[in-house]
């Protein structure tokens, strides 16, 4: 185990050299999590390393940006909840429009007006948490926490719990358990059907996890690869083209940040509705 850790640190040092030396840009280095917060030219900060019950629960680069996203959410939505009456202006209207959009177009549109009301807080939190983490990856020095399978996996796990819970709440435990074995199918097929249904239940959040991770990672890979072309070809002439293309991809990334948050929230709402009304 110690040998393995040493190798990782050794590897990280090598990558640091590669990333900032003359050889070029290391794409993986920018996508991997690390214990170091690089805010060049202001300096590099070593983040604390903690252990809890033998598990490594160090604060990493992604943890910091995830907390930043969480703090932004609290700073925006808590004051918003205290505003009462009167004419609202500026940022309030911007975020209220987004909240209303999540409520009407994501939750109510998929689950229904009456049934959907209890799910709005969960899906709104999911939407804004993912959106803020996506967007923080696009600011300078930022890191996309959603470009990591651990983060998207946990979010998908929460979705999974919400989806299955909605089935239990809407149908009761008995009817919910029976939905694993579709009606009108011979009992002999139960050993086949039940695993298939179970896999179906698990595959949905699994797809959520991979989709978000892959989308957020892919954009960064493309941008870094385009910039990497400058170092690979060793010519200033490539730079304008590469920068122009990476700016274009960057604009696309802003769009994708919204789209992926929307898709994650919408699919969660759709799956909740599917589980509430089993076939």
């Amino acid at each position, binding site marked *: 185990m110690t040998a393995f850790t040493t190798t990782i640190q050794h590897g990280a040092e090598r990558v640091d050299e590669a990333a900032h030396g003359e050889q070029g840009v290391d794409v993986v280095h920018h996508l991997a999590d690390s214990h170091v917060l690089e805010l060049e030219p202001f300096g590099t900060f070593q983040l604390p390393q903690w252990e809890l019950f033998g598990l490594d629960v160090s*604060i990493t680069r992604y943890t910091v940006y995830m907390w930043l996203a969480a703090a932004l959410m609290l700073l925006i939505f808590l004051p918003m909840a205290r505003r009462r009456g009167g004419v609202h202006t500026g940022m309030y209207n911007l975020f209220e429009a987004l909240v209303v959009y999540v409520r009407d177009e994501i939750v109510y549109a998929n689950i229904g007006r009456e049934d959907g*009301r209890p799910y709005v*807080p969960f899906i709104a939190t999911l939407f804004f948490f993912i959106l803020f983490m996506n967007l923080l990856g696009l600011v300078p020095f930022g890191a996309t926490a959603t470009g990591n399978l651990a983060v998207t996996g946990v979010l998908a*796990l929460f979705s999974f719990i919400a989806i299955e819970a909605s089935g239990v709440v809407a149908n009761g435990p008995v009817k919910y358990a029976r939905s694993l074995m579709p009606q009108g199918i011979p009992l002999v097929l139960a050993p086949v059907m039940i695993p298939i249904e179970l896999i179906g239940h698990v595959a949905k959040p699994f797809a959520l996890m991979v989709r978000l991770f892959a989308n957020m990672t892919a954009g960064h890979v493309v941008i870094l690869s385009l910039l990497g072309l400058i170092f690979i070809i060793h010519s200033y002439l490539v730079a304008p083209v590469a920068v122009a293309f990476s700016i274009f991809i960057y604009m696309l990334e802003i769009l994708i940040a919204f789209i992926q948050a929307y898709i994650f929230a919408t699919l969660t709402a759709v799956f909740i509705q599917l589980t509430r009304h089993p076939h």
Partner: protein
Amino acid sequence: MAELHLGLGWLGAGLGAGLALIGAGLGMALIGAGLGIGKLAGPAMEGIARQPEAAGEIRTTMIIAMDLLQPEPGLIFWTAVTFALVLGILWKFAWNPILGALDAREEAIRKTIDDAERLQSEAKTILEQHEARLAEARTEGNRILDEARQAGDRLKGDVMDKARTEAEQVVARARRQLELETDQALETIRNEAAGLAIRVAEKVIQRSLTEEDHRRLAEQAVDEIAGASG
């Protein structure tokens, strides 16, 4: 409060259902991670075997890439804690108040529109009532005017009749008076004329008639007068 209970029940049920299926989920995740790492490590091994001198480079790259697939307990832990905290805090202190305020505002707008529509329909009814009453008043006015005109006409006829009668009476009285006065005047004139004639005749006759003639004439005149007045 009911909202909170619903939320807690929701969470409890979710945990139950989640635990039931979490085994399957973890199995899937482990299969995925295993496949990914295997896919990464296999070609790396082949590469090292083919080029032992590049073993260091390949190992470094492989481990860094593995970082992307490695389940990181720290990040999993912090993501779960952060999301659960944000969800709980915002649920209680942001989402419910915000959604409540939105619902209240929508309700207020709907109520205002309903009120306006109701008031408008009420105003319309009142307007119709007033128009009906106005039409009624107009008819009534016309009737009163007609009656007044008729009464006036009747009164005028009466007055004219009376005036005419009075005028006729006045004329008749005047005529009678006139006749009476004419008769008196005629009487006076006759008397005067007789006296005058006698005096004129006296003068003429004194000069040319004899005593005898006087007598005879006088008798004759007396007779005549007596005959005329008799």
